[in-house]
């Protein structure tokens, strides 16, 4: 049992026998075992070295022509294995405005209503624990780089607000923005909310299925 553990663990970058350069023959079986151990050790060391370099190249924000090169090389593996990462919360600049999303819904009969996307600041503490994902999703909806998400969100809102007798025909997604501006004395007074249209979406019958 102990012997088995040792064979698992003696996989260093340079085994002790290499350091003293006095490898001796102890029979074929031992040689085979030692060979397998060395192979395992080599594989583990390669694994460690590769991942350290790859993770560093992936996420360390240093301007060097080597970084994008390395990143492109490891990209397929990182995306496949789920090792991609970015650590930029509130960085380099924290979000400078409070925002929320509203949807103006226009129904087939011509009526309309305003639907508000879940807002963390209006939730109770326990509700916030369960609904935090809505905050993150809202941030991504408003980031301006993922337009496809807006269309999917419009379809989801239309589905959950439609009835067979009176389906939603149009969804207008609006972002409300209130900039955070420090006063000269360091105090803060909320700025008025400004609307920005994110997307106007004509709902198709298949969207509601």
């Amino acid at each position, binding site marked *: *049992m*102990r012997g088995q*553990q040792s064979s698992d*663990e*003696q*996989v*260093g*970058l*340079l085994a002790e026998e290499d*350091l003293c350069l006095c490898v001796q023959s102890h029979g074929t079986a031992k040689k085979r075992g030692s060979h397998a151990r060395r192979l395992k050790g080599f594989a583990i*060391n390669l694994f*460690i070295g590769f991942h*350290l370099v790859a*993770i560093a190249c992936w*996420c*360390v*924000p*240093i301007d060097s022509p080597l970084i994008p090169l390395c990143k492109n090389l490891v*990209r*397929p593996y990182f*995306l*496949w*294995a*789920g*090792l991609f*990462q*970015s*650590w*930029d*919360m*509130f*960085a*380099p*600049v*924290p*979000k400078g405005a*409070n925002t929320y999303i509203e949807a103006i819904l226009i129904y087939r009969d011509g009526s309309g209503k305003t639907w508000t996307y879940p*807002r*963390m*600041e209006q939730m109770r503490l326990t509700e*916030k*624990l*369960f609904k*935090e*994902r809505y*905050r*993150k*999703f*809202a941030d*991504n909806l408003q980031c301006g780089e*993922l337009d496809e*998400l807006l269309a*999917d*969100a419009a*379809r*989801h809102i239309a589905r959950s607000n439609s009835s067979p007798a009176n389906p939603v025909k149009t969804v207008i997604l609006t972002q409300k923005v209130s900039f*955070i501006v*420090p006063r000269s004395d*360091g105090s*803060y007074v909320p700025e008025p909310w400004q609307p920005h249209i994110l997307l106007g979406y004509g709902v198709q019958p298949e969207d509601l299925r």
Partner: protein
Amino acid sequence: MSLRSFFKLWNEFFFREQSPIPIALFRIIYGALVIAMLALLQPDWLDWYGVHAWVGLPTALKLEPGSRVNLFSMIPQSDAWIEGLFWVTLGSATLLTVGLFTRVNSIIVFVCLTSIQQRNLYITHGGDTFLRLAGFFLIFGPAGAAFSVDRLIRIRRGNEFRTIHARSPWAQRMIQLQLSFLYLVTFLQKIKGAPWLQGTALFYVYHLDEFRRFALPAWFFHPTALKLGSWSALALEFSLGVLIWVKEFRYVLLALGLLFHLWLEYSLNIPLFQWDILSAYILFIDGDDLSDYLSSVRRGVFGLLPTFRSNSCA
């Protein structure tokens, strides 16, 4: 430094056998965090991942192209199958926590967790990312070598003694290094932004309504306090990324890091994020120190029991 001394240091760092208690405790906390994450998400499983989710599977695959570990793109697209995948993840995370079929369950949890995140990357925060990355390296570690049902079974069958044997810590080191990277990169990203260098960043952070949790004291919003807070965060993130590897600073930095994350947990609403990060702190505690601490707790608990009994008898 010569190549030979580099190899020696490398070997010492990654392969010098040590107690597997830290990684075993990490496995328990990690499993519990995965369970907590799934439980908090449970009311909205289908809203985020179902057939009619906020983000459809075709959109997710279009926005995040390429071959990926994603079971959602392999299973039939029905809500029953999707819910089933979540229940499998939950079951496997429970088994991982108790340490039954530890290696197999660490693989299942990693694959399922990665699939859940790949299916909808637009609702994941840094804590989720860290769990995914730590889960990958946990697969390779001796996570079931202590405090596990697997070990109890091995002892019962006579395959293992009661003494916990030292093991190679390379997988544990990778999770530790991943945590260091996290802090260091956060620091490097922040110093690229003027508000962090000027000390005004926290003014914006703490006026974001969506993050607000509990009421903060008025003095905290004084410009000087916000400046000190912004700069302290930078200093601490750098230290936790680099200086944590200096043995003499380690426990002090871990204590400061703990206070820092507890403050963030109190003041900002990002459920589980702080605990996801804090979970890996246990890997920085020396195995012998942990063992001594656990023994003293055990002695304390067992020491109390007879006293209690004799008192109650009297």
